[in-house]
């Protein structure tokens, strides 16, 4: 356990001790002379011995301690909690717990490398977890100097694209097994059902979108989506919405966007408040055709030109439906599987600071008690009149 100051400049308040000492220095100059009739037998000394003398030591001590504690409180002291086991063993899901148990001495604490770090004694967690993130979290939470052993299966899933950088050396044990596969991703590139809402004047543009949506249908007999006015309520299941209206998005559409829908907007729509835009599609000349961004869990895409063949000849190209599907579809999952032996963490990450406990309330209590003591000393009856 050690202590630290969050605001060391607060200690500058210790300068207040100096005036206090000056106040308590015996003011001999204004001292009353002492009547002494036997003065004639006093031998004058050429140089009176002057040694700084302090009045009322007890009061001074109380005040000094009080001021020091106040300055300390200004510096915001914290107590760092560095207790805990010296050796730790974490086991990634997919490893046989019995085999992993042998990897560390008995005194070690054994945890699952899953969110919340449950004890290894518990049952095997089913779900895979972000291994890299959990490693970093554990590294930051462990006390300084603790030894960490990580037992991982031969194939890790749910890792970052980079080897984790930790603050300590890690004993990296690769055991047989594989991270249980997470829930399977939705099959990619399934074309969504496009819901088109069009303001008056956008019907011409909506036709291109409707045609593209019709082209995604697996069978020609399937009905192409209808173009409806803005007042038509949006179906609950709508994953892709073409909202062809000028101006800002209404609250209803924003709500859908936040819940994970993809919203297709015309050039006239305002994207204010939707976050930064990224270019998504450029034509052969490199001019921007579609930009987009994400908001909440959803994404939005906006055409930068009016939806007409004169301004945007790409609408007539045969690959437009494919392009549109690419714009609307969910991004493919990031690669997250790795051979565990290639994923040994690096050293050099920033050490996490151990959990710090603010001691200012305790200090405030002590200061209050000391203040009461100081007042008591200062107002005692037997007190001398000075300072």
């Amino acid at each position: 356990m050690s202590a630290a100051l969050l605001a060391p400049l607060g200690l500058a308040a210790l300068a207040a001790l100096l005036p206090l000492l000056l106040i308590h220095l015996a003011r001999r100059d204004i001292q009353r002379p002492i009547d002494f009739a036997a003065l004639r037998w006093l031998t004058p000394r050429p140089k009176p011995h002057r040694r700084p003398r302090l009045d009322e030591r007890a009061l001074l001590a109380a005040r000094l301690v009080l001021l020091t504690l106040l300055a300390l409180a200004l510096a915001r002291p914290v107590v760092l909690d560095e207790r805990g086991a010296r050796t730790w063993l974490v086991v990634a899901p997919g490893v046989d717990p019995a085999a992993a148990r042998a990897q560390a001495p008995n005194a070690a604490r054994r945890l699952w490398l899953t969110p919340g770090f449950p004890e290894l004694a518990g049952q095997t967690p089913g779900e895979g977890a972000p291994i890299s993130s959990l490693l970093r979290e554990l590294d930051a939470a462990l006390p300084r100097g603790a030894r960490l052993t990580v037992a991982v299966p031969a194939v890790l899933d749910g890792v970052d694209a980079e080897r984790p950088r930790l603050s300590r050396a890690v004993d990296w044990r690769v055991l047989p097994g594989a991270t249980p596969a997470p829930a399977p991703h939705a099959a990619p590139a399934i074309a969504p059902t496009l819901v088109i809402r069009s303001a008056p004047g956008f019907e011409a543009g909506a036709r291109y979108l409707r045609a593209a949506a019709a082209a995604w249908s697996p069978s020609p007999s399937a009905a192409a989506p209808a173009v409806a006015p803005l007042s038509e309520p949006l179906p609950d299941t709508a994953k892709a919405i073409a909202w062809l209206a000028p101006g800002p998005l209404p609250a209803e559409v924003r709500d859908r966007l936040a819940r994970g829908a993809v919203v297709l907007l015309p050039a006239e729509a305002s994207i204010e408040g939707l976050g930064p835009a990224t270019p998504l599609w450029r034509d052969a000349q490199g001019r921007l055709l579609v930009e987009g961004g994400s908001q909440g869990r959803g994404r939005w895409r906006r055409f930068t030109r009016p939806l007409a063949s004169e301004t945007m000849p790409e609408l007539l190209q045969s690959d437009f439906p494919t392009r549109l599907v690419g714009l609307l579809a969910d991004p493919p999952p990031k690669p997250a599987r790795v051979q565990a032996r290639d994923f040994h963490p690096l050293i050099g990450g920033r050490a996490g600071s151990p959990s710090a406990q603010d001691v200012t309330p305790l200090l405030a209590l002590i200061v209050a008690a000391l203040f009461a003591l100081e007042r008591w000393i200062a107002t005692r009856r037997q007190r001398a009149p000075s300072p």
Partner: protein
Amino acid sequence: MPPSGPAPLLPPDVRHRLRGLKLRARRAAGAASGIHASRNRGAGLEFAQHRAYEPGDEPRMVDWKLYARSDRLFVREAERESPLTLWILLDASGSMGQADAARPDWTRLDAARALAAGLVEMALAGGDRFGWVALAGDQPHLLSPGAGGRHRDRLSLEMATVKAAGGFPPPPRWAPLWDRIGAHDLVVLLSDVFDPNSVDLAGRLAAAGREVMAIRLLTVEERDFPFQGGHRFRDPETGDELPGDGVLLRADFLRRFGEARARIGAELDARGVRHVEYVLDEPLDAPLRRLFGGKA
């Protein structure tokens, strides 16, 4: 009868301890009538009482005229007139106003007043006459000797008004003393006796046939010099100041002051003045006991 004034000058316990003491003058003590004491009955001028004759009474003490009238033997007793007059010389110079820091309300002058009250009590008990002189300022204040409780009250009232100020009166101001203090009177000087004039006055009075005693009042600080650190010392009579560190001054002061005390004591001895020292933290009856107690 308690003394008038805001506070009794003499604490009851001191008054009690003084009860056994009698004013005693060397010359009176040598007189034929024995120890000077109060209301000695015996041969004298003032008639006191008749009492029945007891075997062993001198025939010349028998009142024969009364025997003639009453046919019984009576002895005529007379009160002997006290030959003793007590003069209290109270030094009221500035130095008498000095007190100790530990007890600021107990100045040398307060102690001198209390000692004077004690002396007066002793004189009252002995039926002696007493007067006092305040030695301060231009003209010594003087109260003629008298006897009795009323005189004691008047004296304590006057004493209560005395303030310590100025210096010890120089010899030209002593003239009233010579006029009033008769030969063979008992004179008690209450003073610190630091001033050479005070030694001189006591010595001259003794040389002129007065019985002179001196109680030399010292403060505790003069005896112990307990000062720590720097102080400014001021002579209350001259106003001279001397800054100094208590610890450094101490040894030298105690040596020189001790020599001075011994020298003053020797001079008083040489001039026939009995003297005792009284330090302010001692019981009040101690100096009186040393002066008047014991077998002289």
